[in-house]
């Protein structure tokens, strides 16, 4: 595999683009094909849930921490689940001046919206006692190697982390929080299983799962989050424009590929039975 040490040269750019026009990708994949996915779960002893996910050479390690706080007055019985992402300078020579802040914000935001709007984490289940105490979950993603398409890896990584969760169960007794000794697990916390699929566009060619060289030269990307039945989030980025027909086509494709991927990954296997 090509080792990316610099911004893509004009020659490489032409090579990649011309092949894409023939519906061929420089790494041999078809236009709608993912790179290999590998998943390890519950890898961090200090975290209350974690995942180590690779898509090709892109690798993200994610952990879950929690805190207990007073709920917002207007949402007295709802906890909070936040998503943060950091592109470690370990992950790429492109990050030598410090990793790009915008890219990590985008990664966190798109993954967060995928989870939030798909009714994935049911925030009412994060309530310990209304108006008094709720859980705050922190899902923090760290990019260990950057080889393109962080968003889709981040989505799977966040979901696996939640599914592998083991958060101590608390209850209020006489106005004080006590621990029951039991744990909230992924089955309790996770409802829907949203997946986010990202497409790149170069000239008029659209393709799934952009690798790093494709990402560096593409005009734009679009990420679509889907549950089994619905589209729950869309985010276009970059200067590419998409025709109305292309959008309708991509929505349809995402529903299909998402269904298959959800089945293949079978994320429920990563549930942790704790104590």
């Amino acid at each position, binding site marked *: 595999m090509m080792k990316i040490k610099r911004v893509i040269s004009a020659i490489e750019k032409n090579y990649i683009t011309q092949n894409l026009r023939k519906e061929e990708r420089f790494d041999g994949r078809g236009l709608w094909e993912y790179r290999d996915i590998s998943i390890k779960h519950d890898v961090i002893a200090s975290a209350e849930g974690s995942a180590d996910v690779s898509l090709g050479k892109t690798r993200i390690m994610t952990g879950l921490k929690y805190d207990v706080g007073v709920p917002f007055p207007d949402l007295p019985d709802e906890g909070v689940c936040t998503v943060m992402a950091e592109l470690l300078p370990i992950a790429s020579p492109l990050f030598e001046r410090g990793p790009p802040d915008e890219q990590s914000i985008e990664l966190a935001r798109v993954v967060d919206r995928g989870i939030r709007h798909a009714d994935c984490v049911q925030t009412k289940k994060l309530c310990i006692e209304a108006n008094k105490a709720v859980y705050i979950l922190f899902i923090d993603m760290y990019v260990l190697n950057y080889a393109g398409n962080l968003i889709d890896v981040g989505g799977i990584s966040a979901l696996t982390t939640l599914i592998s969760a083991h958060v101590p169960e608390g209850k209020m007794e006489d106005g004080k929080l006590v621990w029951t000794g039991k744990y909230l697990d992924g089955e309790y916390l996770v409802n829907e299983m949203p997946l986010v699929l990202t497409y790149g566009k170069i000239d008029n060619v659209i393709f799934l799962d952009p690798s790093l060289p494709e990402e560096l030269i593409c005009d734009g990307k679009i990420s679509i989050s889907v549950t089994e039945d619905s589209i729950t989030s*869309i985010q276009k980025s970059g*200067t590419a424009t998409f*025709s109305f027909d292309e959008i309708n086509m991509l929505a349809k494709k995402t529903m299909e590929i998402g269904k298959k991927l959800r089945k293949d990954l079978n994320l429920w296997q990563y549930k942790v039975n704790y104590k």
Partner: protein
Amino acid sequence: MPLIIKDEYPEKLFRDDGKRLDGRDKTELRPIKMEVGVVENADGSAYLEWGNNKIFAAVYGPREVHPHHLAKPDRGILRVFYRMTTYSVFERKRPAPGRREKEISMVIADCLEPLLFLELYPGTSFEVFIEVMDADGGTRCAATTVAALALADAGIPMKSLVTAVAVGKIDDELVVDLSGIEDKAGQADLPCAITWFNEELSLLQFDGDMNLKQMEEFLSLAKTALSEIYQIQLDALKKKYIEIQEEVSGGNS
């Protein structure tokens, strides 16, 4: 020290007569006014009122890039700064620019850049400053729309204008141009923008829940609304040229 009057949402977003809370039909836009050339010092500027949204946009450029290391030898760069005043929203916004403002700045830049011929301006920059003075839902779309006008007012060559609008779902019905309250209390929000030179979407976001059929409906509603707003943009530009012409002929008569 939290604000204590709560920003409460109504239970229903349609009145008994089937109209929306502000009296609009489902596909009706809020009142929109646009004007160009409103900031004396800027190279180009525009002002927009869209419902209760009040937004200024000003363009400076092409000019030298600060800091220098951002300059590109083979093309100009476009930078967009979307900001809101502290008093533009119900609960006072903090003065420092937040994440949301940075995000929207990026989104608008992605909409404006395809319009420009940046390769003709190596080593220079265009800055678009957008200030939301009063906000009432759909500010990212309104800001995109008024920013395009400010660029046109600056006389910068453009492939076309760009126009944006949000469609959404409230009380299970698809509607056009969400107001502030509809945005917050509604079920789904789909802001989008069209670049007229190729009639493609340069902004597309969605949060909510929709199936494939609903999505087609959303896009079709948006298309009609975008055409209406485009007309108002064109009128604002025409008005300026008519005024200039009148001034010139007035001077000659």
